[in-house]
């Protein structure tokens, strides 16, 4: 469970976070949705402890984590471009966290994870020889290796081609359900949010403007700006067309 209270961080320009209050339940798949430069990734990086907030608190699993360094927070982080260690093989990437923890079963556990994510055959390769989808799976395996409480995903699908995206999206949801991990997933893609999220948090200009299920957010947008971003704003009584991608299946009626 993640509990965020009055979290602010000022970068002196548009990328500022303003008084974020948010509670994410255990085992929840939470999606942070919003346009670019809304501060979604920064919020994720604050949860991970890569930056310190100016004000406010972060609690992870009942522990006050506000001033804990990242290595004490038990969070796994997957970046949009996966940030694999380029000087290490796939195996060494996956084993990295396990070896630091001094786990004796590091080799075995890494092997299991690579099998789970179907990257065993890449074990001795370097990251720069992998495709986007392969890198993605290695990055998730690496993050999950240390059994984190929380999995933080920064636009994990946006660098993938459409077919890999569909497949990976399903895998992500499956992994999250099987491990029961709390996932926070950042995206600007609405369909992705609808398909994955237990709840959606809408971020705009550094503020968390609305939190709710997909249905709540899309049928009752909190502000006009939210409605416009979601493409459901009423204009002269005419509902504007929300572009619904074909691959997302039939458009729900709400």
């Amino acid at each position: 469970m993640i509990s965020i209270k009055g979290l602010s961080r000022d970068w002196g320009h548009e990328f500022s976070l303003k008084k974020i209050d948010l509670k994410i339940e255990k085992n929840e798949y939470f999606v942070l949705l919003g346009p670019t430069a809304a501060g979604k990734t920064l919020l994720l990086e604050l949860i991970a402890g890569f930056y310190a907030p100016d004000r406010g608190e972060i609690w992870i699993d009942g522990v006050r984590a506000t001033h804990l360094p990242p290595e004490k927070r038990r969070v796994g982080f997957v970046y949009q471009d996966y940030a694999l260690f380029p000087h290490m093989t796939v195996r060494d990437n996956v084993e990295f966290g396990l070896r630091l923890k001094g786990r004796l079963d590091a080799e075995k556990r890494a092997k299991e994870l690579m099998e789970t994510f179907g990257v065993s055959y890449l074990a001795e390769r370097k990251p720069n020889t992998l495709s986007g989808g392969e890198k993605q799976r290695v990055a998730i395996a690496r993050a999950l290796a240390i059994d984190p409480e929380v999995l933080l995903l920064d636009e994990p699908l946006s660098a993938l081609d459409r077919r890999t995206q569909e497949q990976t999206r399903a895998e992500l949801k499956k992994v999250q359900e099987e491990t029961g991990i709390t996932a926070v997933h950042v995206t600007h893609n609405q369909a992705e949010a609808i398909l994955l999220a237990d709840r959606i948090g809408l971020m705009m200009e550094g503020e968390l403007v609305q939190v709710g299920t997909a249905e709540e957010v899309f049928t009752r947008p909190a502000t006009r700006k939210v409605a416009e971003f979601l493409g459901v704003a009423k204009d002269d009584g005419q509902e504007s067309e929300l572009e619904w991608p074909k691959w997302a299946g039939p458009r729900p009626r709400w």
Partner: protein
Amino acid sequence: MITRQKYTFQKGFYILLGAVGSILLAFIFLTIFNMMFDQLLHPSGILRAAKDPSVMNSIGLTLYASMIATAIAVLTGTPLAYILARRKFPGKWLIESLVDLPVIVPHTVAGIALLMIFGSHGLIGKFSPVRFVDALPGIVVAMLFVSAPFFVNSAREGFQSVDPRLEWVARSLGAGPWSAFLKVSLPLAFRHILAGAIMSWARGISEFGAVVVIAYYPLIAPTLIWDRFLTSGLRESAPISVLLISICMTIFVVLRMLSRR
């Protein structure tokens, strides 16, 4: 047709740039290789120099002293380079200017400044148990002063080229700041650090002005060459010069090849 025209335009453009640029190349090439060819055509001078123990000793001393200076630059400059690459703080430009200062200070001035602090009445020299004036430590500090900026700047570039998010991910995987530095940042910046060390070593070897002020003796190769030039002219100094740069170029070609691998 359009691509063809574009191509010819580019071709002319690059031929022109190449022609102008080759003036500079020819200047450097001719200067160095004219001397080398001149000596290699009559190798008796080089052979005599190679058999002269004072010549070989001074070349050895030069390489050795510069190696010590480079080791000090690596040990103290790497942390500095990392901070300069990673942190923003007020007055950072001042620190950066300070690092670059030895590049713009005339080297005789650097030597005089070094003599004033490391000399027997100087701030450090007064209390130091080791003697700097006319001794190996004096040569080392002079080389360190002029070569440190090359190392620090190269290492800083190296650390800047490492995405900080790689360090963050390492931290989230359980690495403390030290192991993130040692396992991620340092190996990824290693090439730049090595290149910086090679540059710094080369710069140290080529130093004359600062060294000659604080430590004329023991003679390093550049000082020896100057000494022989004053006493016996080109006949004596040119062969030693060729010998020195031949040895240096061989070492650098090997090191460069090793560091590129």
